[in-house]
């Protein structure tokens, strides 16, 4: 993996009380980068250059604010939209884009659809598609860390729809019982594909589900980066001081489609979209920074420009990298390949060499 980090200023070792103007600007810059990734990747998918993409637009403030409140030692268990979280964590943009291309430099060796990345060195666990499974896992890792007295938290990211999953229930319950130092971060973007939040569950808020597990529950405006930062920082402190886990509901909106396979016009109104567009976290943050004098229009232009350039360059590289080698198909299933897998690998090689299958 390339060395350079995309994080302008890395998130602090110990989250401070409040974000400084410099940090806010750095956070904004990452939000701009994340939005740019979205725009570019939606286009790449339309052009057939990548196979799939699930955008995060509307969720940038929640993701960046949340990730900023964590320490690099904390374990992140993402769903599939957490690109901004990865960027805050310091995952190089190149690594993310390589994953989208599934090329020979992709950390997960071209095995997964775009958005399903993971980077052990960044304690950013490799995503999977079945929703919710990361939740119990994050609790298990937190239990292990607590056992080993490592002062860290684990955090799982998931959406409003995923509160209905089996692992949500089991994960929060185990976390409560074992007082695992774990944070559950719901990005309630109001939709689970075509199902609106009100028909996902009848509770008034998602955060109040915490009560069922005897743990803390907090609702936060996910369009407000500083507010998110604050509740996550508090949750982190609570977890580490023995106060138990916290369920956080960040209220955001999925401004884009569920994924490139989805057409949201089928199920939601233009009016609803327009209303939420008026609360775009990027516009809001920009306005805030402009008013406080911590950002100029010129700087803003620069951020967008450098994001686009950076993207152009990593995409160029990703497209120049050769595809993963056929033999990788049989790697990493077990620590050491079994005789049967060796035999199948040989069979595939034979088929390739005889031209029965094409690489």
């Amino acid at each position: 993996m390339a060395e350079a980090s995309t994080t302008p200023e890395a998130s602090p070792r110990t989250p401070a009380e409040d974000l400084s103007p410099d940090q806010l600007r750095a956070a904004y810059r990452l939000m701009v980068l994340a939005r740019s990734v979205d725009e570019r990747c939606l286009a790449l998918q339309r052009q057939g250059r990548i196979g799939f993409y699930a955008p995060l637009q509307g969720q940038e403030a929640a993701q960046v604010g949340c990730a900023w409140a964590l320490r690099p030692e904390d374990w992140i268990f993402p769903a599939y939209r957490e690109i901004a979280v990865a960027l805050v964590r310091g995952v190089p943009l190149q690594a993310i884009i390589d994953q989208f291309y599934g090329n020979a430099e992709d950390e997960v060796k071209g095995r997964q659809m775009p958005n399903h990345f993971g980077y052990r060195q960044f304690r950013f666990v490799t995503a999977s598609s079945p929703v919710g499974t990361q939740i119990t896992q994050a609790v298990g890792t937190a239990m292990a860390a607590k056992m080993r007295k490592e002062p860290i938290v684990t955090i799982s990211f998931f959406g409003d729809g995923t509160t209905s999953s089996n692992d949500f229930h089991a994960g929060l319950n185990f976390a409560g019982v074992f007082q695992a130092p774990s944070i559950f971060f719901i990005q309630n973007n109001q939709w689970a594909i075509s199902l609106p939040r009100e028909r996902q569950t009848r509770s008034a808020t998602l955060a109040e589900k915490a009560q069922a597990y005897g743990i803390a529950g907090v609702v936060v405006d996910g369009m407000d980066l500083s507010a998110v930062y604050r509740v996550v920082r508090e949750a982190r402190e609570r977890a580490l001081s023995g106060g138990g886990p916290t369920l956080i509901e960040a209220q955001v909106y999925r401004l884009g489609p569920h994924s490139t396979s989805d057409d949201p016009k089928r199920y939601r109104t233009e009016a609803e979209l327009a209303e939420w567009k008026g609360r775009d976290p990027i516009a809001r943050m920009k306005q805030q920074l402009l008013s406080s004098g911590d950002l100029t229009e010129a700087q803003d232009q620069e951020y967008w420009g450098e994001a686009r350039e950076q993207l152009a360059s990593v995409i160029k590289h990703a497209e120049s990298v050769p595809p993963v080698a056929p033999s990788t198909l049989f790697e990493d299933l077990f620590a050491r390949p079994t005789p049967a897998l060796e035999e199948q690998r040989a069979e595939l090689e034979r088929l390739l060499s005889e031209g029965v299958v094409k690489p």
Partner: protein
Amino acid sequence: MSELTLVQAVNRGLQQAMRADPDVVLLGEDIGVNGGVFRATEGLQKEFGADRVIDTPLSETGIVGTAIGMALYGLKPVPEIQFQDFIYPAFDQIVSELAKFRYRSGGQYPCHVVLRAPYGGGIKGGLYHSQSAEAYFAHTSGLKVVIPSTPADAKGLLLSAIHDEDPVLFFEPKRIYRAVTGEVPDGDVRVPIGTASIVRDGTDVSLFAYGAMIPPTLKAAESLESEGISAEVIDLRTLSPLDEKAVLTSVEKTGRAVIVHEAPRFCGYGAELAAILAEKAFFSLKAPIQRVTGWDTPFPYALEHLYLPNAERIVHAARSTARAG
């Protein structure tokens, strides 16, 4: 007759059944307003209302559990699992409950649920949007497992499934949802569950396949023909209960068998076919039974073309089988 794609045929089958019987209800994720992520249920909520085409919360456990409850009551629920890969949260309900309800209640509680799910690779779905999990369910006593490969079979078998009295898992080959169109009879025309279809006659080797593996298998048979090898192609259509007679009859004639599926080889469905042949057609067999299958790995993303059996691999296996012995 209408010229339909496979997914349209599924849609028409559902529509047909729902028009004929108010007890047929659909439930699942994104099947209503959105018409299903593959559009299999397109237009049905509009026609039949949100009471009969139910958008559920994101819980396969809930979908199958409540569908069972509806079936106990006397409805004919047809739940959809959005991708077969996401059926596992419902595995307990399927294996412990759906499959065993009639039996464990001494026949008091039939449990007629038709569980639909698109399955299989070839759509660049990676590990979690490509699986072929049929063997788990074929191994589960008490379930019927059906996989169509043509638009006409899709509609006809689905209608039979909905008119059956037992739990049916109906797996749809999403790779060929739109690949071809075919003539589909209008109205309530059923294709019986439990009968395989000989889609091509042959004398030298039997090729067994189902679902999305039928097109490459047929292509292989054509290719073999040009080499002078006459291949019989059997589309199993129902994996459980298997049309054992069709399988045995074919191999008694050809003496050779190649089995094709997308799922991993080890303990895959093909193993059962081979085992039945090795027991009941042993003295007819002239050559080793070959399996052309997915590898014993998870389903990959970038290299899916190397994972999925193609016509050439089938030809390759059939050729060596035909020459052996």
